[in-house]
């Protein structure tokens, strides 16, 4: 795929960055902000239905979800959830710590803080919130941060509760765990001021870093999530949800631009072929007969279920277009299939641009054209094999999507795939369905509150950088790496803790050099939790191991999670060498190399030194060994 000239496409990107806060309690109850992996003893089931006035106006996807009568099962770990998450008790007052962090962040991004903050209920009916809504509050508006290429507007900063974790999903039931529900999240939304993928990554990094600089951001998988709003000239505003990794951002943008460009090309081709939305027929044809004796396993399986059949629609003038690749590995046909899955709940579709294939023969395809009266030279046919009701819903959605193709790119909400491509999720919600959370009083932002928040305003990165170089003695390169590291808060805490006992350079290099280099060597560094790093540095501070042993100890613990550091030190034979042991070892080395010493005199230093180091490396400071060896040689040669 050729390189895209982004300024020509008129690309506009806005970011929404969500970061979990590491507060002592959840946003609206007193539960700790912990995830629990233990099996939950308490499980309950619920159904949701659109609230009274919603019926008829609610977005179609939500209504569809409700009509499917989905059952939601909730695992409720007792250590990290209570009646509030179970929607069995009204919310408590908002967590002040989380509020202060949000206010501090808003200040650091030059935002206008709202004078009186109102907590709202945002209707979410997929079960991820037990109550059927997410509590969220707008904290500040109209700020900006600086990027290399100029100001990036920060439109809004919200403080909201995180949703429950999805554990499992089947056709009738979705299972969630409610430990994550209620963990405070800050959501920072930028203006659509970003014009290329690299800039998007840079801005995301910068905002993420700013939040981490408060020292109150959670780290680890799932603690930061990015949504992207992307549009190009002539295209449409598309919202992409759930980009979990920073490195995916540029890819997602690239692929989305590509997709919109390809869809526009398809539109041009359709117009050229004189296809108009009203030419696309609503007619859904039962073509089960064609597949009575099919060899296709998928079709056979669909026909074996009671009421199973094969249904088709003809897309006049679409021949060849369904096979056009619009993102790597995804064709225009995949877009139609997404619609069929979401609206009809079917497994997928077949279309004539990809047939014969999947066990469907050339003869069957020919029969299909005959049966539907379609022209094999210019028309495409889409078929779905499933029970009638689902197949019909699916094909209706396919027709609708095909009609939009003649008009252009649809505005929609898409979900990011792990490879950076995206798939259709649902239509973009209309005006947000929000109403006041009447159980929580509005919060008047007093000068006292702002005073408390001002203590949490993160130091600007430039200031920190300077401090690290001047006060901590880091090289500029090391200081930069620390500032960009996820464990920035850990670094600061450990520097304080080991002040005067371990130099800051050792702590910094453990975090930004040693651990990444272990990862390159294939060490499972995800097993290196904060407390492991702290245990190892404790051992250094207590002279139980030398700083040179840090990589070996970390690597060994990572490979044997759960093993105590004491055992690892013992097994690796890394116990610190005492001075008398060292003297003993030097004596032995001298004795062994007496000939060479008498011959080479002072120049024999290297020989003795390396002999001794062989047995003490990583267990005692090398400088001390050298000093001792020199002393000894001087003594002998005197």
């Amino acid at each position, binding site marked *: 795929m050729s390189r895209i000239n982004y300024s020509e496409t008129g690309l506009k990107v806005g970011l929404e960055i969500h970061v979990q806060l590491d507060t002592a309690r959840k946003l609206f109850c007193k539960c700790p902000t912990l995830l629990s992996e233990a099996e939950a003893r308490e499980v*309950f*089931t*619920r*159904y*949701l*239905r*659109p*609230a*009274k*006035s919603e*019926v*008829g106006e609610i977005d179609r996807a939500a209504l569809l979800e409700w009509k499917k009568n989905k059952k939601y099962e909730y695992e409720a770990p007792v250590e990290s959830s209570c*009646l509030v998450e*179970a*929607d*069995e*008790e*009204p919310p408590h007052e908002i967590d002040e710590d989380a509020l202060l962090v949000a206010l501090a962040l808003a200040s650091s991004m030059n935002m*206008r803080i*709202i*004078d*009186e*903050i*109102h907590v*709202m*209920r*945002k*209707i979410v*009916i997929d079960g991820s919130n*037990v*109550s*059927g*809504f997410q509590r*969220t*509050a*707008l904290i500040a*508006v*109209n700020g900006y941060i600086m990027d290399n290429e100029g100001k990036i507007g920060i439109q*809004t900063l*919200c403080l909201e509760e995180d949703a429950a974790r999805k554990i499992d999903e089947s056709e009738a039931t979705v299972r969630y765990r409610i430990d994550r529900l209620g963990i405070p999240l800050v959501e920072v939304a930028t203006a659509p001021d970003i014009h290329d993928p690299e800039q998007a990554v840079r801005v995301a990094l910068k905002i993420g870093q700013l939040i981490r600089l408060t020292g109150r951001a959670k780290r680890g998988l799932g603690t930061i999530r990015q949504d992207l709003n992307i549009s190009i000239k002539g295209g449409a505003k598309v919202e992409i949800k759930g980009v979990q990794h920073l490195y995916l951002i540029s890819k997602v943008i690239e692929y989305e631009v590509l997709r919109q460009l390809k869809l526009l090309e398809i539109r041009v081709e359709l117009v050229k072929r004189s296809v108009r939305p009203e030419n696309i027929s609503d007619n859904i044809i039962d073509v089960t007969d064609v597949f009575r004796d099919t060899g296709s396993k998928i079709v056979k399986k669909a026909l074996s279920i009671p009421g199973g059949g094969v249904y088709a629609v003809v897309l006049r003038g679409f021949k060849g277009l369904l096979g056009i690749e619009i993102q790597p590995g995804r064709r225009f046909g995949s877009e139609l299939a997404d619609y069929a899955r979401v609206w009809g709940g079917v497994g997928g579709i077949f279309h004539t641009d990809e047939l014969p294939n999947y066990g469907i023969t050339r003869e069957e395809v020919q029969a299909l054209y005959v049966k539907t009266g379609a022209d094999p030279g210019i028309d495409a046919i889409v078929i779905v094999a499933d029970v009638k009701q689902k197949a019909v819903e699916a094909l209706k959605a396919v027709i609708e999507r095909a009609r939009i193709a003649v008009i252009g790119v649809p505005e929609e909400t898409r979900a990011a795939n792990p490879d950076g491509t995206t798939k259709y999720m649902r239509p973009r919600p209309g*005006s*947000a*369905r*929000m*109403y*006041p959370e*009447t159980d929580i*009083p*509005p919060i*008047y932002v007093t000068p006292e509150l702002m005073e408390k928040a001002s203590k949490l305003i993160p130091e600007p990165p430039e200031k920190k950088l300077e401090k690290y170089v001047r006060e901590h003695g880091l090289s500029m390169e090391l200081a930069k790496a620390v500032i960009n590291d996820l464990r920035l808060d850990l670094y600061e805490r450990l520097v304080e803790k080991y002040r005067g006992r371990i130099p800051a350079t050792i702590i910094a290099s453990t975090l930004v050099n040693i651990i990444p280099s272990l990862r390159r060597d294939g060490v499972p560094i995800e097993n290196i939790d904060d407390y492991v790093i702290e245990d190892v540095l404790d051992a250094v501070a207590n002279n139980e191991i030398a700083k040179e042993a840090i990589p070996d100890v970390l690597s060994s613990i990572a490979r044997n999670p759960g093993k105590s550091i004491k055992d690892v030190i013992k097994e690796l034979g890394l116990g610190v060498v005492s001075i008398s042991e060292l003297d003993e070892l030097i004596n032995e080395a001298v004795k062994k190399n007496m000939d060479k010493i008498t011959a080479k005199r002072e120049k024999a230093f290297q020989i003795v030194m390396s002999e001794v180091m062989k047995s003490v490396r990583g267990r005692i400071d090398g400088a001390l060994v050298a000093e001792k060896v020199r002393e000894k040689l001087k003594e002998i040669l005197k």
Partner: protein
Amino acid sequence: MELYYGYSGNVARILRSIGVEPGDRIIVVLKDGTVFNGILMPRQVLYSGRPVLVLKLDNGYNIGLNIDEVSDLRLVSKKQVHHHGGVEAVGRAEGLPRIVLLGTGGTIASKVDYETGAVTPVLTPGEILEWVPELAEIAVFNAREVMSIFSEDIEPLHWENLSREVYKELVEGVDGVVIAHGTDMMSYSASALAFSIMNKPAPIVFVGSQRSSDRPSSDSAFNLRAAFIAASKGPFAESVIVMHGETSDTYALVHRGVKARKMHTSRRDAFQSINDKPIAKVYPETMEVRIVGRIIEHRGKNKKAQLKNKFDDRVALVKVYPGLQPEMLETLIDKGFHGIVLEGSGLGHMPNKLIPVIARAVENNIPVVMTSQCLFGRVNLYVYSTGRRLLEAGVIPGSDILPETAYVKLSWILGSVSRDLGEVRKVFLTNLAGEFNERHILDLYPRWNHE
């Protein structure tokens, strides 16, 4: 000071002067140049004192702006009036039972105005059906509001009205009556209906919700479906409460009103039967009614209901506690109260120094009933000497009746039956609606998980 849609002072003055009302679109310019465009919201009276204007932005968020920061405020457009075309109730389906839904002002059915956030009750069959279409499969129903009052404001007088309305419906021949009622005082009202209408031909079902119906997770639709099923096909003809059986949306319980109690402030399964099993479980999904307890009165089309609906509002319910002063009870006697229900300690005791006051009440023709604040178990005044002295003083032992039920029953006896002490004692000790359970088996007491 007069409020303007909840606003006061400077804010009210400014809003009034330019004639903007909640729902109108306005532009607010702050002194720092920030511009907000949104819908003016009404103010909650509790916060009227703050110099704050509340706006709903187009992204749905509400924000409060300090009026002192505002440099300009302009009306953009007046509120759009939305006409909501409600669906009318479906015609009578063949063979379905006929039910009436009476509203009392509880919030089981309400809807939210998404612009102002105001919650308003709904009670037309059309609107209810639009919200819970499943009801159409259970019964044909009518709905009307018989009063509009918070559950906590209900007084004995209201029971008289409610009884009359229910009685009218029963005489009309409905197959069941469903009463939407706030949960706080629901068990009192359900007890009142148990006594005020005797020989019921059909069930009287109280139903409410612990989570308001303006949220997707509300328990009201589930409870309403269960109540409709109980009212239309339950074989019992008693005054019952139908609410969630557990925190999950699996089944509802049918509690005998005189034996039910709200045992939790907020959980959906707050209602529990005390000293008796619930009558039945109802599964809304399958529309199954499974009888799990006793039925005191059976349904019967030809039964003729009897209405005796006077309640005496001069009855006191007094909790016994360490340090209870004799004056508390003296005052009741001196102020001319007609009856006293005591919530005694343990087996039904109270401080010995108060016993002479009890004797004085009885001498003054004031019946005194003893119940237990333990709730579980039965009063027994023979075990300790204090109990025997209370009996000697003339206390009526309330067996295993709930204190609240005893209060309602005494109020009803004094209002509808007699104020003669001997007659009151005799009627009180008669099991009229299952308010006494003579057999307590081992599993009538809840056990908690301790580990």
